[in-house]
């Protein structure tokens, strides 16, 4: 077959596959069904686009999401109509909240049946509308190629996000000439790339005038491939830098200028520095409620600069003095140039005083836990050991809850795209399928899925997918027999009434892993943690399910209760929450 422009008559299904190939799609995560059988037949006849068969459509979207987050390339999904589409919705919403580029193709009943409540018919466009960047329905096979091209363009540019393309079955049988459209532009969609030079000069002037500057960088750094530009800028300023949960790895965690994650379970020093700073540079962050706490108490003394590619993220929750719309990498590059071009330099004496204060906060060692405990496995210890043994260079996916926070606190990410978690939507069940996408994209890398016994069961069926494609993921199951974060909130805010947060009738995870064809290990003594992790990490050819039986009552600290201010943190030593 020749590439590109020769106009051969192809079926919609063949055009679909050719388009994916011409977009450079490597993996297609999917699950067949009636409405997409023509497409599956076309997939059968080629080898360039590799199809990964998941066990549930939610797994397909999360796997594509993990692939996208770890590579920066769009994740691509194919599901059938009706339940195929509805099962994919959780994954689409997950990607939407975290601005991950996905292109999700949903099959649809034949055009002539739409609206008749046909078998496996659902209004996929309507159901997904609130959780996509955009969606399209293909009504004519002649539009298929251009819609697919637009879908990839919209998903991957500006603030990225998921795009759904709904394709009725008859469209995939109709024939037309195939031409890969060169230009995907839409008249109504022109994301801003460069920041306004005047605003950038203003920002530079404000930053050099700062006595207590602070840099708050979010997922936009990772999504916008702006980690080198951020690192250069922060080092020029000599300012403390914090990352949001989504931004971890956007600035090297082992750099002395890094003060850790901020927000509800952020470090003492990061939150106190937020509270006391006089100039705040926010980049690619959206002032989420888990980050800001009480808005009335948020950064009370700060003048705020906000860089974001999405104008709607600016001034949404917090008033900002200098808004700059543009791509993080380009704006940060220009901002550093503007700083270097000004006559004044950052105030060294003021910075030294600011760092003395920060070092005092740091000396509280807010992430301390009971390391001396030899009776019961502390979950933090498992993650510290994982960090040490992988030399901080693994890809870590996580589910949602306490284990997620501990992974964010104790695994120090020096590189972007290594930390893969559902931050915005908080989707339990994300970690394992996401790890599938990550491992496929990085076959030689160590991929660890940090999870808990509640989360892992939400997409446990994907263990079968892992077997089919020989994915040697390491599952770190922090098994405390509770929905840990729910239990923690019930302890603090509901006088320890543990309503439905205890998981009875848990499976034997070792046997479960084995029944799927994997290796499983149960570890219940602190002294066995390291050996088990070493053994698992050493098995390059197998998925190993490590079931760590951990302390049931451990809580995540520090903690800012919902609606409190950054300076109203509770540390492990306080124990009691107001």
């Amino acid at each position, binding site marked *: 077959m020749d590439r590109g422009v020769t106009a051969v008559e192809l079926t919609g299904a063949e055009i679909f596959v050719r388009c994916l190939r011409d977009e450079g799609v490597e993996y297609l995560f999917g699950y067949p069904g009636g409405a997409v059988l023509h497409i599956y037949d076309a997939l059968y006849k080629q080898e360039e686009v590799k199809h990964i068969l998941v066990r549930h459509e939610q797994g397909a979207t999360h796997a594509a999401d993990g692939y996208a987050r770890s590579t920066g390339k769009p994740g691509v999904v194919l599901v059938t109509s009706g339940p195929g589409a509805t099962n994919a919705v959780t994954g689409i919403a997950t990607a939407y909240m975290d601005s991950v580029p996905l292109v999700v193709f949903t099959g649809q009943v034949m055009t002539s049946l739409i609206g008749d409540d046909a078998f496996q018919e659902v209004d996929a466009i309507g159901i997904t*509308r609130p959780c996509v960047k955009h969606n399209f*329905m293909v009504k004519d096979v002649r539009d298929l190629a251009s819609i697919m091209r637009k879908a990839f363009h919209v998903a991957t540019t500006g603030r990225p996000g998921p795009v759904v393309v709904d394709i009725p079955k008859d469209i995939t049988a109709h024939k037309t000439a195939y031409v890969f459209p060169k230009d995907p532009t*839409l*008249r*109504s969609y022109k994301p801003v790339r460069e920041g306004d030079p005047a605003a950038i000069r203003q920002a530079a002037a404000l930053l050099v005038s700062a006595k207590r500057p602070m840099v708050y960088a979010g997922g936009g750094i990772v999504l916008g491939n702006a980690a080198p530009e951020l690192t250069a800028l922060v080092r020029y300023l000599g300012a403390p830098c914090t990352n949001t949960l989504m931004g971890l790895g956007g600035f090297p965690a082992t750099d002395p200028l890094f003060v850790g994650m901020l927000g509800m379970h952020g470090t003492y020093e990061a939150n106190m520095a937020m509270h006391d700073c006089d100039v705040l540079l926010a980049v690619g962050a959206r002032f989420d409620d888990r980050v800001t706490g009480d808005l009335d108490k948020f950064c009370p003394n700060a003048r705020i600069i906000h860089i974001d590619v*999405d*104008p*709607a993220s600016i001034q*949404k929750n917090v008033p900002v003095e200098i808004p700059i719309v543009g791509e993080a990498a380009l704006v940060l590059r220009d901002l550093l140039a503007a700083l270097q071009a000004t006559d004044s330099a950052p105030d060294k004496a003021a910075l030294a005083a600011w760092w003395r204060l920060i070092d005092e906060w740091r000396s509280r060692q807010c992430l301390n836990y009971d390391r001396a405990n030899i009776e019961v496995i502390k979950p933090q210890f498992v993650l510290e050991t994982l960090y040490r043994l992988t030399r901080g260079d693994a890809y870590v996916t996580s589910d949602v809850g306490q284990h997620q926070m501990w992974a964010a606190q104790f695994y120090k990410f020096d590189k972007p795209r290594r930390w893969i978690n559902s931050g915005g939507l908080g989707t339990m069940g994300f970690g394992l399928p996401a790890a599938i996408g990550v491992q496929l994209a990085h076959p030689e890398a160590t991929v660890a899925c940090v999870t808990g016994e509640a989360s892992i069961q939400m997409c446990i069926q994907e263990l079968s997918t892992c077997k089919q494609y020989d994915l040697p993921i390491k599952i770190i199951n922090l098994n405390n027999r509770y929905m840990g974060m729910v239990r923690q909130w019930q302890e603090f805010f509901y006088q320890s009434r543990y309503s439905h947060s205890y998981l009875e009738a848990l499976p034997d995870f070792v046997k479960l892993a084995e029944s799927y064809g994997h290796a499983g290990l149960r570890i219940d003594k602190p002294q066995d943690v390291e050996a088990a992790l070493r053994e698992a990490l050493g098995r390059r050819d197998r998925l190993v399910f490590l079931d760590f039986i951990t302390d049931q009552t451990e809580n995540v600290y520090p903690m800012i209760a919902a609606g409190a201010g950054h300076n109203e943190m509770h540390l492990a030593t306080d124990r009691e929450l107001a």
Partner: protein
Amino acid sequence: MRHIISILLENEAGALSRVAGLFSARGYNIASLTVAPTEDPTLSRMTLVTSGSEEIVDQIRKQLNKLVDVVKLVDLTDDDRIEREMLLIKVCAEGGERDEIKRLADIFRGRIIDVTDRAYTIELTGDGSKLDAFISVLKSRRILEVVRSGVIGIARGNGACVAETP
């Protein structure tokens, strides 16, 4: 504060529901919304009346602009502008009332567009407050039905909210 926003959007199935869905999902108010195709059949014109603090209306404009179907958006609120709304009202008109209602319609520059032996249907165009006033003077009679078109608006002068030609 009340804002009137004029939007050009792709004349495609689903474009209207993207706008309506945005307002319900984010809890914004819609006072009225009108939409119809323009002289360019690929584009629709929507006129939307909303209200909220300046911060909220700023967010509304930004969120609308983010919709891929929105080609152009102009907030007419601060402009010198013309606003119009049409009212069709059916009112009971019997016996001696008939002359009185006709006189009221004339005063408001309304037109009686349908007549039966028991009712008038009156058409009236103007800004919202004029329509409100007319309805309120008819309140003492028996109003059978009120149909309002929602507001449309356009800026005075040479400026125009049109799509850029490629």
